[in-house]
């Protein structure tokens, strides 16, 4: 069976599974197909799942970019997002800056942090064993959590900004914050795509991810390119922080609630494959949303993790990853 056939079968299976997960529990509960098909709350859940997918896609984007180019997994990526959320929180609520400039400062700081992580830690481990790279970035995760606890305390803090929601159609409400997050994520994914395919620097980043050594012959200073990629990845973490800080409280361990899922999205999509990561983000978000609607939100996460484990058996290279 060819690769394309496998792909088609997987897509068909996914659509059938999605329809089953969406409608079957309601049909079983209510004993009424028409009710299930016209259940507005179910559709509201699906739309919210879609919007959550945008944020997850953005979260996985930076991680994927860094892995694709430098071949190092930043286990501490979500902690960079957490620090970005704190930066925005402090700029806005403590120093009284308006929200947008606070967010811009947050993005700039995480970009600098991304640069610093590469310069101080990763740079020395680029050619090391993957396990050593994981231990180093894992160590950074605990370092950032502890540093944040010491500096900011363990209180949950929030921006106190609510964008409210609006009725998409009767009885279907959509949160402005989630819609803004989705729209921003979509624009960023598109902008990053244009950058990687149309600009000289972006083409060089793609090239270096395919053959590190040869780019040196082309006159590219590998280290500089890695620093640039790390700064862009850090900046993307800052952007995710802008969107998350509008919806969630910030505390030193907030990274743990979305760090593992961002990592799983990257793996499911095929590590380093940004399109795969984008699709995987929406699969996860719908599983979480629908699981939460029919059962409890925790069940949503259970479904997502079970799906991930099964997929690792069926397709260990990820949805769009290349076989190795």
């Amino acid at each position, binding site marked *: 069976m060819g690769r394309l056939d496998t792909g088609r079968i997987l897509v068909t299976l996914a659509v059938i599974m999605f329809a089953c997960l969406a409608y079957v529990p309601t049909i079983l509960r209510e004993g009424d197909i028409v009710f299930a098909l016209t259940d507005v709350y179910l559709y509201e859940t699906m739309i919210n799942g879609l919007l959550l997918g945008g944020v997850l896609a953005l979260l996985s984007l930076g991680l994927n970019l860094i892995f694709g180019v430098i071949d190092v997994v930043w286990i501490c990526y979500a902690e960079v997002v957490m620090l970005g959320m704190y930066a925005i929180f402090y700029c806005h609520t403590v120093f009284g800056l308006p929200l947008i400039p606070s967010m811009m400062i947050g993005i700039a700081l995480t970009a600098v942090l991304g640069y610093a992580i590469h310069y101080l830690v990763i740079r020395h481990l680029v050619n090391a064993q993957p396990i050593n790279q994981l231990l180093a970035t894992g160590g950074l995760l605990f370092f950032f959590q502890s540093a944040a606890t010491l500096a900011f305390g363990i209180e949950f803090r929030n921006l106190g900004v609510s964008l409210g929601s609006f009725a998409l159609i009767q009885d279907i409400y959509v949160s402005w914050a989630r819609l803004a997050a989705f729209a921003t994520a979509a624009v960023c994914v598109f902008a990053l795509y244009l950058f990687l395919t149309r600009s*000289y620097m972006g*083409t*060089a980043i*793609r*090239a270096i991810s*395919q*053959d590190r*050594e*040869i*780019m*040196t*012959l*082309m*006159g*590219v*200073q*590998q280290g500089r390119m890695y620093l640039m990629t790390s700064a862009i990845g850090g900046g993307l973490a800052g952007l995710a922080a802008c969107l998350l800080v509008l919806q969630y409280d910030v505390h030193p361990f907030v990274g743990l609630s979305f760090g593992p899922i961002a990592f799983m999205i990257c793996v499911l999509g095929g590590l380093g494959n940004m399109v795969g990561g984008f699709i995987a983000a929406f699969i996860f978000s719908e599983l979480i949303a629908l699981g939460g609607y029919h059962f409890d939100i925790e069940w949503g996460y259970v479904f997502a993790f079970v799906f991930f484990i099964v997929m690792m058996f069926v397709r260990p290279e990820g949805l769009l990853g290349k076989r190795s």
Partner: protein
Amino acid sequence: MLALSGVDAGYGTFQALFGCTLEVRTGEAVAVIGPNGAGKTTLMRVISGLIPARSGTMTMQDLDLVATPPHNIIRLGIAHVPENRRLFPRMTVEDNLRMGAYIPMARARFGERLEFVYDLFPRMRERRNQLAGTLSGGEQQMCAIGRALMSGPKLLLLDEPSAGLAPVVVERIFELIRVIRERDLTVLIVEQNVQQVLQVVDRAYVLEAGSIRMSGSAQELSDNEEVRRLYMGL
């Protein structure tokens, strides 16, 4: 143009080159021939800075190559077509060529360089939007040479351009090397295909076990009994 004197180099504890001395003059085509594992590829990698020289001197137009960082070697006018082509397989032919013109002075003349390469290899113009990994072996070699020419080099290093290609394609690659020479390029070529390479170069060096064993004009080496017996199977 290029001068190496007493160059030692290797990988880790393994030494691959022992006191190599060679010279390439402007406008010349010079070959380095020798058996598998003689250190031919190492020699090319030392010149382009991918492996540091442990001792000895290397100059390009009187500029010190040993002290030049690897990514700046191309700025001195040296372009390296590596062994096995090493294209970016998931990028188009044109994006591969674009990467060849990465340095600012080449980027400024990108359009002009691209036309030059497309004129030299019309097949590349036809394949410009095709992924490099899907090209045939001969086309990949053209793309790799084209990518090196994009930087506007003075000296072209060719590492085993005929390796892994069908005999009819090898003929064409050597024909292309003749054409490249007519465009006033200096060429240093490493080859196992001794009989054919001696027909396109002016001079050659024989490298054995990391040392230069002999050197001479292409004609002298073609007539040399030992070279004929060991490397041409005659």
